[in-house]
């Protein structure tokens, strides 16, 4: 229940990301890069609000979020620079890998959250090609934390309220709806560092 524990989990997610990416087909292997881990932090931060430590399933969920993030970043690059065959193929590959990564968790709700994020990000970009996908994935991170973690009912309500607010208030004010304490502080610092 502390910062050190959270950072251990984030690092495990980073290591797993690098491990599976090393086995990716080229050019996905070359293009996937390194995860920026903000989503992993949001996810594990939510988990830390409770006492349950999902271990392997938590790492997989975090890795899946980071894979989706990379897929959407590559997609955004494609929208900016114009269609490139390589980028389309690799984003499709990363979407499939992201879904496959969480199959072992055996929780259909997890797939639903990730799939919903893919749909929402695509719909946002149809409206505005410059739309930032991070609020959608951040919301998925919080929702996954609620789905996988065992957080008390009050904290769940607060996280859900923050999650709903994310699209409107990215990166900022939705954090005020999260439970007060070291987790909220940590997430605030993490988001400020990445934006």
């Amino acid at each position: 229940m502390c910062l050190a524990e959270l950072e251990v989990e984030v690092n495990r997610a980073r290591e797993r990301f690098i491990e599976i990416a090393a086995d990716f087909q080229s050019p996905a292997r070359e293009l996937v890069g390194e995860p920026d881990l903000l989503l992993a932090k949001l996810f594990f931060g939510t988990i830390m609000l409770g006492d349950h430590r999902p271990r392997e399933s938590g790492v997989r969920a975090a890795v899946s979020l980071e894979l989706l993030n990379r897929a959407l970043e590559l997609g955004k690059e494609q929208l900016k620079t114009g269609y490139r065959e390589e980028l389309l193929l690799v984003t499709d590959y990363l979407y499939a890998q992201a879904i496959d990564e969480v199959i072992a968790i055996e929780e259909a709700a997890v797939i639903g959250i990730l799939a919903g994020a893919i749909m929402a990000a695509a719909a946002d970009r149809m409206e505005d090609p410059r739309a930032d996908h991070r609020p959608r994935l951040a919301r998925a991170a919080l929702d996954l934390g609620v789905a996988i973690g065992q957080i008390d009912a009050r904290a769940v309500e607060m996280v859900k309220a923050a999650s709903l607010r994310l699209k409107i208030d990215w990166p900022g004010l939705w954090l005020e709806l999260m439970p007060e304490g070291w987790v909220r502080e940590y997430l605030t610092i993490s988001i400020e560092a990445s934006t």
Partner: protein
Amino acid sequence: MKISLVKKEKPVSIRALALLDKFESFFTSLIAAESAPISVPALAAVRAGGKRLRPLLLIISASLGSKVDKGKLLNACSAVELVHLASLVHDDVLDGSDTRRGVSTINANFGQTRAILIGDYLFGLAFRLLSKEGENRLIEPLAIASVHLSSGELRQRQTLRQLDQRIDEYLGKIYTKTAALFIASCLIGARLAEVDEATAALLEDYAGGLGMAFQIYDDILDFTGDANVLGKPIGNDIREGTVTLPMIYALNHDDDYLPRALNNPTSANIKEAVDFVHACGAIDSAREKAKEFVAGAIQAAGDLPDGWPRRDLISLGNFVIDRYH
């Protein structure tokens, strides 16, 4: 809506066709319920027709069980067809195709960007739909197939115009590109039906064989089909640099036609290459290979419990041979 070949020629039972009809209505309504930027282009693609083989395989496989929830069945059928549709939408962007089944593609009508995003959306929709059933065991085969599909596409693009491809490499590619989703369709059906492991394994063998044959026949059609029916010119694979089984067999002969056409796909070069592929017996060799796969599929189906699903699967296998001989 264009009538699919399966509905026109009816190689399967009325029960299967009736369920397929129910699926068709459900699927159309599902897409129509999405917001206009998605539904308008996606519906046009759906209404262009298609054999709906994957949902059909799922329906027949699920019918091996005594009592399958219809709602789950329709959602599962929609999920496999959505993954297939998403892959076609992206394929059309990759190939720069203006038409598919004689209808303008999404990228032709709405641009590449919109087509890419619609493909992404449909992919997400497939998994969200299946997740609502709350059963990971139904999602797993589709997740595996999606990895295969995307992996196969990457490999295919990397091997364009490569003249030294072996038959086993080609077979590996078409497994990922086509057979994997056929297998997923049958496995999801098997899990809905709660059949035993031996039956599920037979369905997997059947679907794998049928999928491989189907793709080989599709690749043969690129040399033998009617351009008006295909909706694209003969020799399109040569034009795009996709090396298929007839070409691999033809390349075993000491000739220049294919290498020349693959490296310089003018109409004249393509025509010469197509003529050569016919003349050297490569088409017949490819057909024999396809028949081997169908024979394996029919053998697997033959070991299934007796009943109309078993008969339908065997009939479908024979249909694939007869239709594309």
